């Protein structure tokens, strides 16, 4: 079924780093969700199931030539938009936000699919367009819409973190990877800066609070300042070697809420210390830089952008999430790939990794 050539070109290094990160993530999650007298909690098992599902999808996508993805890119994109609309119409609510849809007994978060479908759509869009001198701003209208539609739908849920990630992916892919006229770049930059106060006006109160408490968390210990203070204590208290597996008091005693989702890195930092934290950071760097290497060696435009886009997705998640946990960035709902609990995102992560493997495997085709 699979061409022998493909197997020869299989990227074992990339696969290895994916496995390592996944394994570390699972082990760490076990500790993060372990509650006294409860043994293996359902959360941990759920994550294992999702990993298996993600791995299965990964294996399946390896059999599919990425050219097929190119052909169906827009369809996948439209499908993900429809799912987003479904969320708004008949979605499930959790923690004050409507982000999920129910399928059978499972819940799925369509915004996680959008992370990939946006990259696919943008890669497809720029595949055929050639613009030797560079794009003018007005020529970027369609890509802008491709990004704006899901971002707006997602902001309505509300899900600030995912919207932010999509915006970051779009900005990087379009303004860094595509040649855009300097003039246009300047205009965008100016608009961005002057747009801040306008954005401020439209932000919800709690989002404003988050920015303010980020500036000085001690100022508001009753609100999200609490998160940041606790997270820094968790991270710092790890010292060099950490407190040991399943011995992180901040997380075990539930002092730090969300420690199995967005703040999962704090568990690593607390239990494995500086050495452990560094290992994970380096692990991600290897993944990202290796992925970039794959993108560089691609022949066609679509797969280059696709590979680069996926690497960009990993990069922003990595930087923003850990930046938030160590108190460098305000609290936004951005998960850490491989480590944060969350089925939908785990599937996205593994699918994205699968696509990278896929592209690398077929680079001579």
């Amino acid at each position, binding site marked *: 079924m699979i061409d022998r050539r493909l197997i020869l070109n299989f990227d074992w290094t990339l696969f290895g780093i994916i496995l390592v990160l996944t394994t570390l993530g699972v082990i760490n999650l076990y500790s993060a969700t372990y509650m*006294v*007298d409860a043994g293996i909690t359902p959360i941990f098992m759920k994550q294992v199931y999702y990993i298996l599902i993600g791995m299965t999808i990964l294996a399946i996508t390896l059999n599919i030539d990425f050219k097929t993805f190119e052909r169906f890119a827009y369809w996948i994109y439209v499908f993900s938009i429809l799912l987003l609309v479904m969320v708004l119409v008949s979605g499930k609510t959790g923690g004050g936000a409507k982000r999920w849809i129910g399928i059978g007994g499972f819940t799925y978060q369509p915004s996680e699919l959008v992370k990939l479908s946006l990259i696919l759509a943008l890669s497809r869009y720029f595949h055929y*367009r*050639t*613009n*030797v001198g*560079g794009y003018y701003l007005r020529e970027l209208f369609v890509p802008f819409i491709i990004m704006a539609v899901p971002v707006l739908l997602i902001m309505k849920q509300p899900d600030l973190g995912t919207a932010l990630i999509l915006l970051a992916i779009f900005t*990087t892919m379009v303004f*860094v*990877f*595509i*040649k855009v006229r300097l003039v246009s770049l300047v205009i965008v930059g100016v608009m961005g800066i002057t747009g801040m106060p306008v954005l401020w006006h439209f932000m919800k109160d709690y989002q404003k609070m988050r920015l303010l408490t980020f500036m000085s968390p001690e100022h508001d*210990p*009753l*609100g999200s300042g*609490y998160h940041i203070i*606790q997270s*820094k*204590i*968790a*991270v*710092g*208290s*790890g*010292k*060099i070697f950490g407190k040991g597996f399943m011995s992180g*008091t*901040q997380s075990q*005693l*539930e*002092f730090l809420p969300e420690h199995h989702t967005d703040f999962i890195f704090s568990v690593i*930092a*607390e239990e494995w*210390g*500086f050495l452990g*934290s*560094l290992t994970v*950071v380096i692990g*991600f*760097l290897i993944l*990202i*830089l290796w992925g*970039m290497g794959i*993108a*560089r060696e691609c*022949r*066609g*435009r679509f797969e*280059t952008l696709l590979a*680069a886009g996926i690497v*960009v997705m990993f*990069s922003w998640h*990595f*930087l923003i999430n*850990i*930046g938030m946990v*160590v*108190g*460098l960035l305000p609290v936004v709902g951005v998960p850490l790939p491989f480590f944060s609990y969350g089925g939908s995102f785990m599937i996205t992560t593994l699918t994205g990794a699968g696509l990278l493997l896929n592209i690398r495997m077929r680079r001579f085709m």
Partner: protein
Amino acid sequence: MNMQLYSREGFDRLPVRLFIFSSVVLFGALIIFVRLWYLQILNGGEYRQKSENNSIRIRYIQAGRGMIMDRFGKVIVENRPAFDVLFMRKDAPDFRETVRNLSSIINSDPREIESAALKEPPFLPARIRKDIDRDMLARLLTNKLDIPGVSVSIEPRRNYPYGNLASHFLGYIGEITEKQLEKAGEGYRMGSQIGKSGIESIYETYLKGIDGKQFVEVTASGKEVSILKEVASYPGNNIITTIDLDLQRAAEEAFTGKEGAIVALDPRNGEILVMISSPHIDLDMFAGPLNSQEWNKLTNDPLKPLQNRAIQGQYPPGSTYKTLVAAAALEEKVITKDTSFHCNGAYRFGNRSYRCWKKEGHGSVSLHKALVESCDVYFYQVGLKLGIDRIAKYVREFGLGRPTGIELIGEKAGLVPDKAWRKKRFGEPWVDGETLSCAIGQGFDLVTPLQLLTAYVAIANGGAFYKPHLVKSVVGPNGDILKTFKNEKKGNLILSPETVTLLKDALKGVVNEPGGTARLARHEEVIVAGKTGTTQVIMMRADKRVKGQDLPYKFRDHAWFASFAPADNPVIAVVVFIEHSGFSGGHAAAPVAGQIFKKFFDLEKERREGPNVDMKVASLPPRDKE
């Protein structure tokens, strides 16, 4: 090769661009690296100390549960503060000493305290004693320094100012079980309270509020430093029932010492004003943990206190059935108001003699007299003429044989026998002799008190009835009406006006005419209409008849009375069922209904005009000081 050129076009130095981004990522990672160094290496000691010394507790603030009120907003079930003694081992430097001191303060065996304290891990509070009184609270607070690790929590607890009133449909609450916890959604933990029966259970999602949380910073010795974060609790919503509290209380009083059920409702909309099932259950008993001994006692009690007889007790309806049979007979034109039969105390059918309750017989009887004096012989013959299937058809139209659909769980359907049923159940065809028994409500037919009442409501309304319901609306803690429950009309049968008039006249006669069996239910001003029933539990040979109350309990007759008032445009319908009364429906059940009617119309008057002020008392001169 060409492809390569084409695909790279417009990219313009892509490798460089990718490199730029990679550098950005590396730069970001570097900043993270520096930050980690700063937090973990440079300041690691300080943070380690913070995480060890200043620990933070999460204290849950239990939300106030919604109240249950009557139709006028009077509170029937509410909450009161209860103080529990908690023990967190982590904060007790000398465990044994704290246990010793605590035992003398709360008068408890130190071993009991120890075992209770060991039930939880050291950093979670264990409940040592629930619901202490104020004296003990004062002693605990005064001696606080001798008992480090011990604290007192204030929790809301369910309070029943009227004791066991309406205990069955109000329901009780208790601690959530493991199984329930698995299925429960957010907001439930070990130790959470959850409604277990009745309204408390059915409307649990409305009644339960949202618990609050406190993140409290505490030093190594357990002293509170500050409250870091507090999320306020939000109280649950209140349930407005259709019950009339004053009427319910009067009815409960009139029913003391009896077992059975009473239901009163408004025939115009199905709203239930009174629901009693006796024996009652002690709601307070369930508020704390119920040990298995007490639970077994309850479930094995032969009087079955947990059963809500109003909807779960299935009994033969006795003579109250006759009205329904009469309605069927009139509509099917099997009889007219003048059709008469002769009753001489017995009716011979097959090779048996079926007795009438009146040994001497009633003489020549037509419909009116047959109902007023409750002649069995008349109805034996009417029943025969109708046949069991036609009886079944009409009786089902009145709502018998299936649950009424009231909100409560566990409602029974009763039984309406017909030929098909008999074949299925016993494998034998129907025997006409049984029609006779059924026609007077002493055959296979079974009804719940609520069902019988709805059947009478149907008659009073000319065929239609409303689904009985107990809850009027759900109101938020600030008074906003969140949900109103609509009245649902049921019953498609429309009786002809002549039938209705005839029946109503007869039912009026039962209560108001000489010779009527329910004269004890009479009301001075309002015309009450109804029908009595006395169901024999065992067949007695006429010559061996023993006075009812001399029989052992389980052999005594049941007493029924189903009624409504005012007869022409009823605003209230009442059914009284006394289990194993030993007396007849007329003697035992009717007077209870009579008391309820009296109270109801008195209350109506009062509410319209204002309370009756005794003018004499008001004008008395003030008492002279001694």
